[in-house]
């Protein structure tokens, strides 16, 4: 029999890279020889030192990876833009009735936005002092951001409750809250568009059909509808987007407030 090397024992440890006959020879030799058993035990002890490395990922790894990957994939043209994908999935989630209602309201909002745009342009042509106008604009932006951030916080709560709660009384209250949010969300989208913040306006407009469908959910909302909503939220990252924009608005608001404070000194 060939002498048994430490390398053989390493392969034996993993039952890999040796043929069956050699494995049997080593097993028999280990049973007979205390010296060989000691050599094998030393290898086992050495290898065991690797096992003490605890390298479990933290629970946020998936979200963090996706936050970093998503823009890269979009930039590389590997994925369709998120807003387009979101609309497609929203259509799949909404029932036909809800879709018609959502689009009817969206059309109303478009008309309102058009009116807002015209009114906004007329107000810009007025000749106030430039400095005073800037102050007023900054204050208006700060107020708008604070209100939108609060509205998004409430929206986040509504989405979470609708997707996680099976309590009918809680869902009833949630529907009422969603109804009130539809109106304010629409107003803030209009105001953001008028203020020239087209990205925020577009995002708020994307939220509207979701809020509408929650506001018009039947009283007998099923577990399946909650499940569908959860799937929709997961697949569109809507909650993440709501939180991100909410946090961004909070940060901007704080910066503006700090800046105003500095200016006042």
């Amino acid at each position, binding site marked *: 029999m060939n002498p048994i090397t*430490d*390398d053989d024992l*390493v*392969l034996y440890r*993993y039952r*890999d*890279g040796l043929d069956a006959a050699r494995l049997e020879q080593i097993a028999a030799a280990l049973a007979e020889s205390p010296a060989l058993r000691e050599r094998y035990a*030393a*290898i086992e*002890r*050495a*290898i065991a*030192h*690797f096992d*003490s*490395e*605890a*390298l*479990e*990922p933290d629970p946020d*790894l*998936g979200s*963090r*990876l*996706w936050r*970093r*990957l*998503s823009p*890269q*994939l*979009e930039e*590389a043209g*590997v*994925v*369709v833009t*998120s807003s387009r*994908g979101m609309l497609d*999935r929203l259509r799949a989630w909404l029932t036909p009735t809800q879709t018609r209602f959502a689009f009817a309201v969206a059309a109303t909002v478009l008309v309102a936005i058009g009116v807002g745009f015209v009114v906004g342009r007329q107000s810009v042509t007025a000749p106030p002092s430039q400095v005073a106008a800037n102050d007023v604009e900054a204050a208006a932006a700060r107020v708008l951001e604070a209100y939108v951030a609060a509205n998004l916080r409430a929206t986040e709560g509504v989405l979470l409750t609708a997707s996680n709660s099976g309590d009918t009384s809680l869902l009833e209250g949630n529907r009422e809250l969603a109804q009130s949010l539809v109106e304010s969300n629409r107003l803030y989208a209009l105001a953001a568009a008028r203020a020239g913040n087209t990205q925020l306006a577009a995002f708020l407009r994307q939220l509207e059909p979701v809020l509408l469908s929650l506001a018009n959910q039947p009283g007998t909302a099923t577990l399946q509808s909650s499940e569908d909503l959860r799937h929709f939220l*997961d*697949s*569109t*990252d809507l909650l993440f987007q709501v939180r991100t924009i909410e946090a961004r608005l909070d940060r901007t608001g704080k910066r503006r407030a700090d800046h105003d404070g500095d200016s006042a000194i």
Partner: protein
Amino acid sequence: MADDEARWIARARAGEAAAFRHLVDANGAALFRVCARITGDRALAEDAVQEALLNAFRHLADFDGRSAFSTWLYRIAVNAALAQVRKRRDAEVAWPQGEGDAAPFDAADESPTPDRQAMSAEIRRHVDAELARMSPMERAAFVLRHHEGRSIEEICAALSLNVSGAKQAIFRAVRKLRAALEASGELI
């Protein structure tokens, strides 16, 4: 390959962001574990996983389904981890560490287990020094065999080695670790 996984892959190929997100969630943690063991550093491991997933998603059309999707991803991730280690090693050559600095693999474990806590600082220093002497390829081969339970054949495919090369990489890794532990008196 499971039907469910095949459907997600097909949807990802069609450019659906949600499908990519699903594949990230389904595979991210496993890829992180292997990359973390190869790099010995959580931050480098995360960079490697991100790099690997981006690379994989950009070349999703090349995945022919002959191997499991996870194995295909694995191969890409192992190479991304090796690239991260090489990059770091190059940076360390350019900016040598001071004597008081941590050994390269010191950051592997941020939450020490009782075993580790019991290990004296001196032993730890010896072992870290020896681990750092392992080549990225040796460490990767050992991690794949020991922690990931991959066969030598799979290791050959993942690391582009022949059977002899894969075995030798594992043997050298074990020898270096044993030498470190023997030098510190751990195995005596």
